[in-house]
């Protein structure tokens, strides 16, 4: 039986050239579906990769109420109370690895001219120890007390006027950019760093936005949370930094997924009807061949398999071309989702998803014609010409 299946399928593949143009319809259809779907999903995959690049060992403490770190406000007294909580890991000097930070977002513009803003993190003395993933790419770190800025590599690449030597306008004058860092693909890559106390002076703020700390172990978050909850002087909430970023852009990621899949589903339906159309035509064109094979003693199943395998082969070819197009155009491309700068990703997982979708469309598009081909009455098939 397997021999028969192989023989009939091979014979069929060899005769595909005779139906070249109609076969191309399936290939082109799948190319379009997969190229569009994967390109759209590369946005979501890029945002997901950015989230995964975050460090779950770090927590943020925000004043309870505001949804974002920008609106959160913590006084120095509150910050001191938070930093007293047990569960933070220790710095080299034995002090807990936790401190207050401030954020500011002056206007900037994308290289395309689109206005946006760039978020500056005011790093305290422990800022770098808290974020071991931050590595200098070029230039040097900002010096404590100096009005200097360093920018992430995504910010340098996507925003205008953020190279070393350029100046950023802040409330009391312009600050030079002295270095470029990498944060390993996390959101910080699209942002900037300055010295906290200098930045606070400059924006005339006496309060922190957040307190940021490293957990001493995986269970320490609960310990810190209960300590903070037990203190009536504090109305704050603590969460992992990765969870914070995940929930502030959860709606956006869901929306991208919904748009991609709505678009993909409509196109996939169109391609499926197209495949069905072409496969019915293919079976019609092969009637004599099928009749001859059956008369020679080949079973119905090998004939049916040859129909399905033809459709699978064409759909897979289209999927691979579509994936290649999406990959070549968008994998590794710089993208901005509002002020969030990141890199698009066409991952092996996405390509696998595309292949699975192609198989499903090919099966749905060829099953009915295949059954019809297998049931073709031999005499009638032979007579058809």
């Amino acid at each position: 039986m397997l021999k028969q299946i192989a023989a009939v399928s091979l014979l069929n593949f060899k005769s595909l050239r005779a139906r070249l143009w109609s076969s191309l319809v399936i290939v082109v259809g799948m190319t379009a579906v997969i190229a569009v779907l994967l390109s759209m999903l590369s946005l979501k995959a890029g945002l997901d990769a950015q989230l995964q690049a975050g460090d779950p060992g770090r927590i943020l403490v925000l004043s309870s109420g505001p949804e974002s770190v920008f609106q959160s406000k913590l006084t120095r007294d509150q910050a001191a109370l938070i930093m007293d909580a047990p569960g933070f890991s220790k710095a080299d000097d034995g002090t807990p690895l936790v401190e207050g930070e401030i954020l500011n977002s002056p206007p900037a513009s994308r290289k395309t001219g689109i206005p946006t803003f760039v978020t500056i993190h005011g790093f305290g003395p422990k800022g770098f120890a808290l974020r071991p993933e931050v590595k200098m790419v070029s230039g040097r770190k900002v010096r404590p007390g100096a009005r200097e800025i360093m920018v992430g590599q995504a910010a340098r690449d996507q925003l205008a006027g953020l190279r070393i030597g350029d100046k950023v306008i802040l409330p009391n004058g312009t600050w030079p950019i002295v270095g470029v860092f990498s944060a390993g693909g996390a959101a910080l890559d699209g942002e900037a760093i300055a010295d906290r106390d200098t930045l606070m002076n400059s924006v005339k703020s006496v309060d922190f936005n957040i307190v940021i700390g490293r957990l001493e172990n995986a269970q320490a978050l609960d310990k810190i949370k209960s300590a903070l909850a037990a203190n009536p002087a504090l109305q704050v909430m603590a969460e992992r930094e990765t969870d914070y970023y995940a929930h502030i852009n959860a709606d956006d990621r869901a929306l991208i997924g919904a748009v991609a899949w709505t678009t993909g589903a409509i196109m996939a339906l169109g391609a499926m009807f197209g495949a069905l159309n072409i496969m019915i035509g293919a079976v019609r064109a092969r009637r004599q061949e099928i009749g001859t094979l059956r008369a020679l003693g080949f079973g119905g199943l090998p004939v049916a398999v040859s129909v399905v395998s033809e459709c699978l082969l064409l759909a897979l070819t289209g999927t691979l071309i579509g994936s290649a197009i999406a990959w070549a155009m968008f994998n590794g491309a710089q993208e901005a989702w509002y002020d969030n700068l990141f890199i698009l990703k066409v991952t092996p997982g996405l390509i696998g998803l595309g292949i699975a979708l192609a198989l499903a469309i090919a099966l749905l598009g060829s099953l009915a014609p295949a059954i019809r081909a297998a049931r073709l009455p031999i005499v009638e098939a032979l007579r058809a010409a």
Partner: protein
Amino acid sequence: MKYFPLVWAALLRKPAHTILTLLSVVMAFTLFGIMIGFNASVERIVNGAFPERVYVYSRFCTGPGPNVCIMPLAYREQILRLPGIASIGYRSQVPGYYQDPKNRAYVYMVDEGWCRTRPEYNLTPARCRQLEDSRTGVFITRSIAERYHLKTGDAFPVLTKAVTQADGGKLWPFTVIGILDDIPRETRGYIIGNYSYFDQTQPLNERGTLGTFAINISVPDPAVSAKTALAIEALFANSGDPVHADTEVAEAQASSQWAVNIPFVTMVVAGAGLFMVLFLTGNGIYQSVRERIAEFAVLKTLGFSDWGVMALVFAEAAIPCLLGAVIGLGLATAFAAKVPSLMPPSFYLPAPYLPASVLGVGLVCAILVALLSAVIPAWRLRGLDVAAALAGK
């Protein structure tokens, strides 16, 4: 029309093929309609931008979302001294929610000048006076009134997280004093309150500050407004509270590309769908003509001209394309009506905008697809050797 039975017979020759082609075309045009609809709604916002309008913000806002950037009200007099300023208004905002955190309510707290500077918000002088006379009154739009079943006179309490009152209160006891028409630029409706009420609730050290100035210059020219924006930035560049000024035209253009480049994405996706069906219909009509060469030869023998035969082929391609386009664009219109309820509350993507002019573009594209898919087989028939075709060669 008298040749319609001929075309109809050709389409019914393989009914499964015709129906499946139609279904593929329906899918492609559903997608096409949604995509050009999104593009049209973004375009409408960009084209609807007022060329004479400039906005001024505090330069160092504390970030995205409902933020707390403020600047001194005293800047108003200095801006008015610049040449060519026709009107100036200002607002602050109360970003909060109504009853449930999911029901976001972003209240613009405006002054009388704002009513005049932004006439598109339907605040007539009478309504503006009404606003000034009632401390806690707000105007809401029809869509908001329908969403929360509100009418004039109803209480509309808004709870805030970010902006609090001097006494620490987070509840804003607004009352609905009127219902306005919705406008395209506010895709989820809008709420307008009274700035002086807002100011009175603020801590003493924050009184006399505001969020945004809206300015109209005397000439409706984007170049002049861009110059004015720069002049305003320069005016406060060395002050303790520097500002950032943008023209409405620049902001509208930026908004269409801020999350993704909507014009680019929608055109590529719409094109990919059309390309897919072009291949399908082209192949179908090519096969159909090839299999019926003898039939066309008979028609020519009967006296059909080259153009007549070509018209028949084109009609055979056009019927599923046009019918599919009409159904597909209809489905897209139905989908567009559903979009506002499908969007997450934080996302202000406008619904696809599908007026007759945009739907017309869809139908023109359907005719183009039909023409393109029929051109090769129709051209082949032109030079058809009738004798050879009838002999089955």
